[in-house]
Protein backbone atom coordinates (compact mmCIF):
# COMPACT_ATOMS: atom_id res chain seq x y z
CA UNK A 1 0.00 0.00 0.00
CA UNK A 2 1.39 3.37 -1.00
CA UNK A 3 -0.63 5.68 1.20
CA UNK A 4 0.73 5.51 4.76
CA UNK A 5 -2.11 7.63 6.11
CA UNK A 6 -4.71 5.34 4.67
CA UNK A 7 -2.92 2.33 6.09
CA UNK A 8 -2.89 3.85 9.57
CA UNK A 9 -6.56 4.67 9.22
CA UNK A 10 -7.23 1.10 8.15
CA UNK A 11 -5.35 -0.33 11.12
CA UNK A 12 -7.32 1.87 13.50
CA UNK A 13 -10.60 0.88 11.95
CA UNK A 14 -9.75 -2.81 12.11
CA UNK A 15 -8.65 -2.63 15.74
CA UNK A 16 -11.95 -0.99 16.58
CA UNK A 17 -13.91 -3.61 14.64
CA UNK A 18 -11.98 -6.51 16.15
CA UNK A 19 -12.16 -5.23 19.72
CA UNK A 20 -15.88 -4.53 19.47
CA UNK A 21 -16.52 -8.01 18.07
CA UNK A 22 -14.35 -9.55 20.75
CA UNK A 23 -16.07 -7.78 23.63
CA UNK A 24 -19.49 -8.40 22.17
CA UNK A 25 -18.72 -12.12 21.93
CA UNK A 26 -17.34 -12.20 25.43
CA UNK A 27 -20.33 -10.44 27.02
CA UNK A 28 -22.79 -12.49 24.97
CA UNK A 29 -21.19 -15.74 26.08
CA UNK A 30 -21.91 -14.82 29.69
CA UNK A 31 -25.60 -14.82 28.81
CA UNK A 32 -25.59 -18.30 27.28
CA UNK A 33 -26.47 -19.05 30.89
CA UNK A 34 -29.44 -16.89 31.83
CA UNK A 35 -31.24 -16.46 28.53
CA UNK A 36 -34.99 -16.55 29.23
CA UNK A 37 -35.49 -19.64 27.02
CA UNK A 38 -33.16 -22.66 27.00
CA UNK A 39 -32.97 -22.99 23.20
CA UNK A 40 -32.01 -19.33 23.06
CA UNK A 41 -29.20 -20.01 25.52
CA UNK A 42 -27.84 -22.71 23.22
CA UNK A 43 -27.95 -20.35 20.24
CA UNK A 44 -26.42 -17.50 22.27
CA UNK A 45 -23.40 -19.68 22.98
CA UNK A 46 -23.06 -20.41 19.27
CA UNK A 47 -23.47 -16.75 18.30
CA UNK A 48 -20.92 -15.68 20.90
CA UNK A 49 -18.37 -18.08 19.42
CA UNK A 50 -19.07 -16.57 16.02
CA UNK A 51 -18.26 -13.07 17.26
CA UNK A 52 -15.08 -14.14 18.99
CA UNK A 53 -14.14 -16.08 15.86
CA UNK A 54 -14.63 -12.96 13.75
CA UNK A 55 -12.29 -11.02 16.03
CA UNK A 56 -9.78 -13.85 15.80
CA UNK A 57 -9.75 -13.53 12.03
CA UNK A 58 -8.75 -9.86 12.21
CA UNK A 59 -6.00 -9.82 14.83
CA UNK A 60 -3.34 -11.67 12.79
CA UNK A 61 -4.02 -9.33 9.86
CA UNK A 62 -3.41 -6.33 12.11
CA UNK A 63 -0.04 -7.76 12.98
CA UNK A 64 0.74 -8.16 9.27
CA UNK A 65 -0.21 -4.53 8.78
CA UNK A 66 2.38 -3.53 11.38
CA UNK A 67 0.19 -3.03 14.41
CA UNK A 68 1.84 -3.95 17.69
CA UNK A 69 -1.34 -3.75 19.74
CA UNK A 70 -1.92 -7.49 19.78
CA UNK A 71 -5.30 -9.07 20.41
CA UNK A 72 -7.85 -7.97 22.99
CA UNK A 73 -6.97 -10.74 25.41
CA UNK A 74 -3.38 -9.46 25.59
CA UNK A 75 -4.24 -5.97 26.83
CA UNK A 76 -6.42 -4.29 29.42
CA UNK A 77 -7.54 -1.38 27.22
CA UNK A 78 -10.00 -2.20 24.49
CA UNK A 79 -11.14 0.09 21.73
CA UNK A 80 -14.82 -0.54 22.00
CA UNK A 81 -18.04 1.42 22.28
CA UNK A 82 -19.19 2.45 25.76
CA UNK A 83 -22.14 0.06 25.37
CA UNK A 84 -19.65 -2.84 25.67
CA UNK A 85 -17.66 -1.56 28.65
CA UNK A 86 -19.52 -3.68 31.17
CA UNK A 87 -21.28 -7.03 31.27
CA UNK A 88 -24.88 -6.71 30.10
CA UNK A 89 -27.03 -6.17 33.20
CA UNK A 90 -30.24 -7.53 31.68
CA UNK A 91 -31.34 -9.77 28.84
CA UNK A 92 -32.86 -6.68 27.18
CA UNK A 93 -29.34 -5.20 27.03
CA UNK A 94 -28.18 -8.38 25.32
CA UNK A 95 -30.89 -8.05 22.69
CA UNK A 96 -30.14 -4.34 22.24
CA UNK A 97 -26.47 -5.11 21.62
CA UNK A 98 -27.24 -7.99 19.26
CA UNK A 99 -29.33 -5.74 17.11
CA UNK A 100 -27.91 -2.25 17.50
CA UNK A 101 -24.20 -2.80 18.20
CA UNK A 102 -23.66 -5.78 15.97
CA UNK A 103 -25.88 -4.31 13.28
CA UNK A 104 -23.47 -1.37 13.09
CA UNK A 105 -20.36 -3.56 13.11
CA UNK A 106 -21.73 -5.76 10.35
CA UNK A 107 -22.83 -2.75 8.30
CA UNK A 108 -19.28 -1.53 8.26
CA UNK A 109 -17.91 -4.99 7.54
CA UNK A 110 -20.15 -5.14 4.49
CA UNK A 111 -18.48 -2.00 3.18
CA UNK A 112 -15.08 -3.71 3.46
CA UNK A 113 -16.16 -6.71 1.41
CA UNK A 114 -14.81 -5.28 -1.85
CA UNK A 115 -11.69 -3.78 -0.30
CA UNK A 116 -8.71 -3.28 -2.58
CA UNK A 117 -6.67 -4.90 0.18
CA UNK A 118 -6.99 -8.44 -1.05
CA UNK A 119 -6.07 -10.16 2.22
CA UNK A 120 -8.59 -8.05 4.09
CA UNK A 121 -11.33 -8.66 1.55
CA UNK A 122 -10.77 -12.43 1.85
CA UNK A 123 -10.95 -12.37 5.63
CA UNK A 124 -13.98 -10.12 5.65
CA UNK A 125 -15.60 -12.58 3.27
CA UNK A 126 -15.14 -15.32 5.86
CA UNK A 127 -16.33 -13.06 8.68
CA UNK A 128 -19.48 -12.24 6.75
CA UNK A 129 -20.39 -15.94 6.54
CA UNK A 130 -21.73 -15.40 10.07
CA UNK A 131 -23.63 -12.24 9.19
CA UNK A 132 -26.92 -13.71 8.01
CA UNK A 133 -27.14 -15.97 11.06
CA UNK A 134 -26.28 -13.07 13.39
CA UNK A 135 -28.87 -10.79 11.85
CA UNK A 136 -31.65 -13.41 11.89
CA UNK A 137 -30.80 -14.29 15.47
CA UNK A 138 -30.93 -10.64 16.57
CA UNK A 139 -34.29 -10.04 14.92
CA UNK A 140 -35.64 -13.29 16.35
CA UNK A 141 -34.59 -12.19 19.84
CA UNK A 142 -36.31 -8.81 19.41
CA UNK A 143 -39.57 -10.59 18.66
CA UNK A 144 -39.05 -13.13 21.43
CA UNK A 145 -38.40 -10.33 23.92
CA UNK A 146 -41.42 -8.31 22.86
CA UNK A 147 -43.62 -11.33 23.60
CA UNK A 148 -42.86 -10.88 27.32
CA UNK A 149 -45.08 -8.09 28.68
CA UNK A 150 -42.26 -5.83 29.96
CA UNK A 151 -39.93 -6.78 27.12
CA UNK A 152 -40.49 -3.87 24.76
CA UNK A 153 -40.16 -1.24 27.49
CA UNK A 154 -36.94 -2.85 28.71
CA UNK A 155 -35.57 -2.97 25.20
CA UNK A 156 -36.49 0.68 24.67
CA UNK A 157 -34.57 1.67 27.81
CA UNK A 158 -31.51 -0.29 26.71
CA UNK A 159 -31.66 1.08 23.17
CA UNK A 160 -31.99 4.69 24.35
CA UNK A 161 -28.43 4.39 25.61
CA UNK A 162 -27.07 2.38 22.67
CA UNK A 163 -28.59 3.80 19.49
CA UNK A 164 -27.19 7.37 19.69
CA UNK A 165 -23.71 5.98 20.25
CA UNK A 166 -23.97 3.57 17.34
CA UNK A 167 -25.29 6.30 15.05
CA UNK A 168 -22.25 8.40 15.98
CA UNK A 169 -20.05 5.35 15.53
CA UNK A 170 -20.07 5.72 11.74
CA UNK A 171 -18.32 9.07 12.22
CA UNK A 172 -19.30 12.64 11.42
CA UNK A 173 -20.19 13.55 7.85
CA UNK A 174 -17.13 14.02 5.69
CA UNK A 175 -14.69 12.46 8.18
CA UNK A 176 -11.24 12.87 6.64
CA UNK A 177 -9.82 9.48 7.54
CA UNK A 178 -12.79 7.69 6.05
CA UNK A 179 -12.54 9.71 2.85
CA UNK A 180 -8.87 8.71 2.54
CA UNK A 181 -9.77 5.03 2.99
CA UNK A 182 -12.51 5.28 0.39
CA UNK A 183 -10.21 7.08 -2.04
CA UNK A 184 -7.69 4.25 -1.69
CA UNK A 185 -10.46 1.75 -2.48
CA UNK A 186 -10.07 0.16 0.94
CA UNK A 187 -13.72 0.59 1.80
CA UNK A 188 -16.89 1.79 0.29
CA UNK A 189 -19.12 4.60 1.57
CA UNK A 190 -19.03 7.34 4.18
CA UNK A 191 -20.55 8.12 7.56
CA UNK A 192 -23.83 9.48 6.31
CA UNK A 193 -24.45 6.66 3.88
CA UNK A 194 -23.58 4.03 6.51
CA UNK A 195 -25.94 5.67 8.98
CA UNK A 196 -28.77 5.48 6.48
CA UNK A 197 -28.04 1.88 5.63
CA UNK A 198 -27.80 1.04 9.32
CA UNK A 199 -31.24 2.50 10.00
CA UNK A 200 -32.61 0.58 7.02
CA UNK A 201 -31.27 -2.50 8.71
CA UNK A 202 -32.32 -2.05 12.35
CA UNK A 203 -35.19 0.42 12.02
CA UNK A 204 -38.03 -1.69 10.59
CA UNK A 205 -37.91 -4.51 13.15
CA UNK A 206 -37.87 -1.98 16.01
CA UNK A 207 -40.71 0.08 14.63
CA UNK A 208 -42.66 -3.12 14.15
CA UNK A 209 -42.71 -3.81 17.90
CA UNK A 210 -43.31 -0.16 18.77
CA UNK A 211 -39.88 1.06 19.84
CA UNK A 212 -39.18 4.79 19.44
CA UNK A 213 -36.10 5.60 17.37
CA UNK A 214 -33.96 8.75 17.42
CA UNK A 215 -34.83 9.04 13.72
CA UNK A 216 -37.89 8.97 11.49
CA UNK A 217 -38.60 8.09 7.93
CA UNK A 218 -38.69 10.94 5.42
CA UNK A 219 -39.40 9.45 2.03
CA UNK A 220 -36.71 6.94 1.23
CA UNK A 221 -34.26 8.31 3.82
CA UNK A 222 -34.10 8.70 7.56
CA UNK A 223 -34.12 12.04 9.31
CA UNK A 224 -31.90 11.66 12.33
CA UNK A 225 -32.22 13.56 15.64
CA UNK A 226 -29.29 15.60 16.92
CA UNK A 227 -26.54 13.20 17.93
CA UNK A 228 -24.32 13.68 21.00
CA UNK A 229 -21.23 14.73 19.03
CA UNK A 230 -19.97 16.72 22.04
CA UNK A 231 -19.27 13.41 23.76
CA UNK A 232 -17.85 11.72 20.64
CA UNK A 233 -14.23 10.58 20.80
CA UNK A 234 -13.11 10.11 17.18
CA UNK A 235 -9.84 8.37 18.03
CA UNK A 236 -11.39 5.73 20.27
CA UNK A 237 -14.55 5.68 18.16
CA UNK A 238 -16.88 5.80 21.14
CA UNK A 239 -18.83 8.14 23.34
CA UNK A 240 -17.08 9.37 26.46
CA UNK A 241 -18.29 7.18 29.29
CA UNK A 242 -20.34 8.86 32.03
CA UNK A 243 -17.47 8.21 34.42
CA UNK A 244 -14.41 8.65 32.24
CA UNK A 245 -11.67 6.11 32.67
CA UNK A 246 -8.07 7.35 32.36
CA UNK A 247 -8.15 8.14 28.68
CA UNK A 248 -5.80 6.66 26.18
CA UNK A 249 -6.22 7.52 22.55
CA UNK A 250 -5.97 4.76 20.02
CA UNK A 251 -2.40 4.95 18.75
CA UNK A 252 -2.54 6.70 15.41
CA UNK A 253 0.72 5.23 14.28
CA UNK A 254 2.24 1.86 14.81
CA UNK A 255 5.71 3.17 14.02
Amino acid at each position, binding site marked *: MSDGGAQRGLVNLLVVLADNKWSLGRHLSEWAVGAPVLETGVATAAIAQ*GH*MGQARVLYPLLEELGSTLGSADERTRRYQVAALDHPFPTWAHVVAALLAVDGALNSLLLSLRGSSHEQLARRV*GRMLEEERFQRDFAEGRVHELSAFPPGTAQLQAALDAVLPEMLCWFGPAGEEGVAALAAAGLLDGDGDRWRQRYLDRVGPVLLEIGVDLPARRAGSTWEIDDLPWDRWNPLQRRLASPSPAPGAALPTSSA
Partner: protein
Amino acid sequence: MSAVTADRVRAALADVCDPELPVSVVDLGLIRGIDVDGGAVTVRMTFTSIACPCTEVLKEDVAAAVGALDGVTAALVEEVFEPWSRADLTDEGRLILRALAVV
Protein backbone atom coordinates in the same frame (compact mmCIF):
# COMPACT_ATOMS: atom_id res chain seq x y z
CA MET B 1 16.50 -40.44 5.50
CA SER B 2 13.60 -40.57 3.09
CA ALA B 3 12.70 -37.59 0.92
CA VAL B 4 9.83 -35.44 2.12
CA THR B 5 7.03 -35.32 -0.45
CA ALA B 6 3.58 -33.75 -0.48
CA ASP B 7 2.09 -37.25 -0.71
CA ARG B 8 3.83 -38.37 2.47
CA VAL B 9 2.65 -35.22 4.24
CA ARG B 10 -0.90 -35.79 3.04
CA ALA B 11 -0.81 -39.40 4.24
CA ALA B 12 0.30 -38.24 7.68
CA LEU B 13 -2.53 -35.70 7.79
CA ALA B 14 -5.05 -38.48 7.15
CA ASP B 15 -4.52 -39.39 10.82
CA VAL B 16 -5.25 -35.92 12.20
CA CYS B 17 -8.88 -35.72 13.24
CA ASP B 18 -11.18 -32.92 14.22
CA PRO B 19 -11.41 -33.07 18.04
CA GLU B 20 -15.20 -33.11 17.82
CA LEU B 21 -15.59 -35.51 14.90
CA PRO B 22 -13.93 -38.76 13.84
CA VAL B 23 -13.07 -37.28 10.45
CA SER B 24 -9.58 -36.33 9.32
CA VAL B 25 -8.58 -32.86 8.17
CA VAL B 26 -8.03 -34.36 4.71
CA ASP B 27 -11.52 -35.88 4.51
CA LEU B 28 -13.02 -32.66 5.80
CA GLY B 29 -11.41 -30.87 2.88
CA LEU B 30 -9.48 -28.46 5.08
CA ILE B 31 -6.07 -28.93 3.44
CA ARG B 32 -5.65 -26.36 0.69
CA GLY B 33 -2.03 -26.85 -0.24
CA ILE B 34 1.22 -28.48 0.80
CA ASP B 35 4.56 -26.83 -0.03
CA VAL B 36 7.72 -28.82 0.44
CA ASP B 37 11.09 -27.13 0.35
CA GLY B 38 13.71 -29.69 1.32
CA GLY B 39 12.79 -30.50 4.92
CA ALA B 40 10.63 -27.42 5.38
CA VAL B 41 6.91 -28.05 4.99
CA THR B 42 4.13 -25.48 4.87
CA VAL B 43 0.57 -26.73 5.08
CA ARG B 44 -2.09 -24.28 3.96
CA MET B 45 -5.43 -24.93 5.56
CA THR B 46 -8.84 -23.45 6.11
CA PHE B 47 -11.54 -24.32 8.65
CA THR B 48 -15.18 -25.30 8.40
CA SER B 49 -16.26 -22.16 10.24
CA ILE B 50 -14.51 -19.26 11.92
CA ALA B 51 -16.81 -19.85 14.89
CA CYS B 52 -15.17 -23.24 15.44
CA PRO B 53 -13.15 -23.20 18.66
CA CYS B 54 -11.01 -26.03 17.39
CA THR B 55 -8.71 -24.06 15.06
CA GLU B 56 -5.79 -23.77 17.46
CA VAL B 57 -5.90 -27.40 18.49
CA LEU B 58 -6.10 -28.52 14.86
CA LYS B 59 -3.21 -26.31 13.79
CA GLU B 60 -1.10 -27.72 16.61
CA ASP B 61 -2.05 -31.29 15.71
CA VAL B 62 -1.27 -30.76 12.03
CA ALA B 63 2.09 -29.17 12.80
CA ALA B 64 2.93 -32.01 15.20
CA ALA B 65 1.95 -34.74 12.72
CA VAL B 66 4.01 -33.17 9.94
CA GLY B 67 6.92 -32.42 12.27
CA ALA B 68 7.05 -36.07 13.32
CA LEU B 69 7.69 -37.22 9.74
CA ASP B 70 11.12 -38.54 8.99
CA GLY B 71 13.13 -35.84 7.19
CA VAL B 72 10.99 -32.87 8.16
CA THR B 73 13.03 -30.07 9.73
CA ALA B 74 10.32 -27.40 9.99
CA ALA B 75 6.54 -27.66 9.89
CA LEU B 76 4.43 -24.57 9.40
CA VAL B 77 0.66 -24.20 9.21
CA GLU B 78 -0.78 -21.25 7.33
CA GLU B 79 -4.47 -20.40 7.65
CA VAL B 80 -5.79 -19.21 4.29
CA PHE B 81 -9.35 -18.09 5.15
CA GLU B 82 -10.81 -19.72 2.08
CA PRO B 83 -14.50 -20.55 2.21
CA TRP B 84 -15.53 -24.09 3.14
CA SER B 85 -18.68 -25.97 2.18
CA ARG B 86 -19.97 -29.53 2.29
CA ALA B 87 -18.82 -29.92 -1.29
CA ASP B 88 -15.25 -29.92 0.08
CA LEU B 89 -15.80 -33.19 1.96
CA THR B 90 -14.30 -36.33 0.45
CA ASP B 91 -16.67 -39.26 -0.13
CA GLU B 92 -15.21 -40.92 2.95
CA GLY B 93 -15.79 -37.77 5.03
CA ARG B 94 -19.35 -37.45 3.80
CA LEU B 95 -20.04 -41.07 4.68
CA ILE B 96 -18.85 -40.69 8.28
CA LEU B 97 -20.67 -37.43 8.86
CA ARG B 98 -23.86 -38.84 7.44
CA ALA B 99 -23.60 -41.80 9.78
CA LEU B 100 -23.36 -39.35 12.69
CA ALA B 101 -26.29 -37.38 11.26
CA VAL B 102 -24.17 -34.23 11.13
CA VAL B 103 -24.77 -33.48 7.45
